[in-house]
């Protein structure tokens, strides 16, 4: 919190400086501080031109091939656009525009004797990654494209899937230092206007210095920033973004971020993988239910074990008592410590695996899983029953298709665990109530987060915990409050209204 305030002050300082220097000389003076800023002055037949650029930002081939050879015939700057074989040439006299574009990779061309008009020629180097396979949201069937760091490429990937004029891309610049381009994507006539203006309003109100990724945007614009739950989905799949836009949602793409954001959304959407739409609806529904129960299991399994062993021995069926007691008889730790040690060990493994290169990470997983697991059971530090439960719970938490949600699930297990230790089942029940109320209070862009469960909308269940066949999906979800409610005309479908 404190660092943020500090940063804000810093950016304000820079703003003030910007206001002061208006002349081109002082701009050059400022830019000359960097070694990669070059100014060349050449004497041509008709005038003497200066060319300024950042050598690290421009593609020198463009400069040599498409700019320099044509400058010979130049007499006034204003004829630059007609002379050069490049379509993006800006004529301006505004120093701030010059500065911004120089920093974006434009080449500045001006007449040394006439400082009233400047030409800016787009010559930036395009050094982006090739479109590659999705890694986080991999699917066996379906498209295998994923976003890259270039906003234009990303928009291209989405627009290819929505070749209609109603598809709108609104661009904003966010961030005092990073000047990040942020695009809001939606379809006019489908997306709710209120939602669109909410997003644009929140983005333009943002007062932050550096936006390095879309996840920073999520944290800054979501409804409740102190909630562990992400309230906007992030996806690296252009097909998922495009289909969400088609549903009436609004997508946000950020330059330099290979993940787009979608909202408004519901908690159930975080447990649906995009692959669900490529599978038969029965299979997909089954997988979704499995994932949902995996989450419940992952949150509740260890706390229930701790609660039962610490307080509620009566609950254990008589045939299971012996198994549990013998597995625990040699262990000196109380159940809570035993569980915490194991849970933390799993977290360590995950964290270590995430920080190391893939191949080393895999080894760590195997070494940690097998060696530490068996050793701790043999050493009498943990019981083998708990080891199974914790390992299954960890496995279950990895089934969540959206990475951010998986992290949340792993975090909220710990309060449950502690409460189970303090108050047994009562503690688990209280934590569960707390979680429910929290989810009830959450909203995503002002729309309820627990929908269609609450407010109960039977119609929206068709694509939440289960996925019904496409023939029954003729209406867009009520959640989005779309302007055009029908996806396609199903002759019998009624009007899509909130009951």
């Amino acid at each position, binding site marked *: 919190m404190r660092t943020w305030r500090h940063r804000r002050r810093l950016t304000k300082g820079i703003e003030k400086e910007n206001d002061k220097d208006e002349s081109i000389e002082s701009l050059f003076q400022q830019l000359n501080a960097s070694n990669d800023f070059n100014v060349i002055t050449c004497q041509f037949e008709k005038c003497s031109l200066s060319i300024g650029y950042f050598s690290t930002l421009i593609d020198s081939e463009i400069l040599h091939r498409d700019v320099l050879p044509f400058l010979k015939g130049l007499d006034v700057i204003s004829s630059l656009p007609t002379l050069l074989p490049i379509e993006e040439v800006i004529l301006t006299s505004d120093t701030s525009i010059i500065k911004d574009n120089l920093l974006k990779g434009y080449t500045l061309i001006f007449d040394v004797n006439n400082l009233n008009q400047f030409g800016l020629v787009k010559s930036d180097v395009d050094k982006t990654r090739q479109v590659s396979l999705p890694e986080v949201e991999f699917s066996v069937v379906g498209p295998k494209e994923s976003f890259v760091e270039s906003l234009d490429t990303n928009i291209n990937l989405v627009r290819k899937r929505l070749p209609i004029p109603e598809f709108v891309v609104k661009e904003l610049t966010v961030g005092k230092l990073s000047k990040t381009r942020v695009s809001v994507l939606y379809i006019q006539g489908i997306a709710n206007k209120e939602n669109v203006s909410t997003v644009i309003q929140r983005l333009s109100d943002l007062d932050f210095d550096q936006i390095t990724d879309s996840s920073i945007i999520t944290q800054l614009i979501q409804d409740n920033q102190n909630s562990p739950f992400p309230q906007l989905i992030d996806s690296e799949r252009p097909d998922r973004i495009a289909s969400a836009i088609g549903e009436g949602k609004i997508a946000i793409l950020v330059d330099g971020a290979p993940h787009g954001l979608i909202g408004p959304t519901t908690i159930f959407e975080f447990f649906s993988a995009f692959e669900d739409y490529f599978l038969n609806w029965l299979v997909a529904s089954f997988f979704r239910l499995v994932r949902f129960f995996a989450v419940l299991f992952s949150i509740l399994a260890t706390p229930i074990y701790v609660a039962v062993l*610490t*307080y509620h*021995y009566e609950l254990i069926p008589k045939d299971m008592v012996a198994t549990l007691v013998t597995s625990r008889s*040699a262990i000196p730790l*109380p159940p809570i410590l035993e569980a915490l040690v194991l849970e933390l060990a799993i977290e360590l493994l995950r964290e270590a695996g995430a920080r190391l290169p893939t191949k080393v990470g895999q080894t760590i997983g195997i070494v940690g899983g097998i060696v530490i697991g068996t050793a701790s059971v043999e050493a009498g530090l943990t019981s083998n029953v708990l080891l199974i439960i914790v390992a299954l719970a960890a496995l279950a938490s990895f089934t969540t298709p959206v990475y951010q949600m998986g992290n949340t699930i792993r975090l909220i297990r710990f309060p449950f665990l502690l409460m189970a230790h303090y108050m047994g089942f009562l503690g688990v029940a209280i934590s569960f109530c707390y979680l429910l109320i929290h989810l009830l209070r959450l909203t995503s862009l002002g729309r309820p987060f627990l929908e269609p469960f609450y407010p109960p909308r039977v119609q929206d269940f068709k694509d939440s915990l289960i996925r019904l066949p496409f023939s029954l999906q003729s209406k867009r979800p009520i959640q989005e409050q779309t302007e055009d409610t029908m996806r396609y005309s199903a002759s019998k479908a009624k009007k899509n209204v909130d009951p």
Partner: protein
Amino acid sequence: MVKRILQSLLLTLLLTGCMNIDQRILDDIQLSTAAGYEYIEDDTLEITTVFPSFQTDKSIKSETITDSSTLSKEVRDKHSLQSEKPFVSGKVEVTLYEWKTAEKGINNLLDTLQRDPSIGSNVFLVVVDGSPKELLSKQYGNPDNGIYLSNLIEQNIETGLIHKTNLHQFLYKLYAEGIDPALPVIKQEDGQVKLTAVGLFENDKLVGQIEEEQFFIFKILLERKGNKDSYSLKLNEDEEISIYNIGSERKYDIQKPLTNSEIIINVKLKSSILEYQNGTLKNEKITYLEKEIKKLIEQESLEMIQQFQEKGIDPLGIGEEVRTRTRNWDQKKWKELYPDLKITVNVEVNLLEKGVVE
């Protein structure tokens, strides 16, 4: 913001820190699985408690502790005095009552079972022919004695050999007007436990028993709908048959309730033949057998009911049938009427199957 989070964290820690709930960690408590009661003097009770001791090689040793006192919960404290872990009663599966103790009445001993919320309703109550202390101090199988005995009784209920019984059923019958409880009786013989009889109670006092041979009759008369359980009859010197109950149905026919008019119990018995000792089974023979079996069962039922009437007990719940048929039920009047009532049993036997051979 940070301050608020810290405050709330601190608060929850404080709150939960002084919740003051005592822990009962599974491996730090002594789970008693069975308790045997016996009056050694007039009001001094000897209680034997069984608890499993888990060995390192994963086998389970059954151990017992015996103490005597006047209140049963006091005994628990005495138990704890000689134990490394505190005793808890939440996993008690069976309670045993010595024969004489049961004759004295077990109502007082049941109070703690009812009052203690940690004791379930599925606890089995049994009467022991002999000393419960002796019975419990032997080891019968790999699980401890409590679980062994509970499995023994549960298995017999499930296969239909004895009627359904547990703490709840006993209390139901104890408090109900017009039915008396019955409990299984076990006996230890040559290091083995055996279910020998069903003990009959008048209120909470043991007054008699019915033998193993009568279990079948008792069950079909007691349960409105029953099945399983086999029955062997001796028709005459060299004709013996064993039948298996596929489905029995019992119906009461009471014309004028709470008067001394006749009460008719109709039993429909569908069964199959398990074993037959005398020749092949032709159709004519089957009808003959059905008649014979009917005669035998009716006769034995009548004998049994007469025995009940003489003792003035009603384990079959005839009184309950009368009660639910009249608006002016009077328990006293019924008690007076009952011993001299004419009760008839009508049995309809249907031999449906005769196995895979003729």
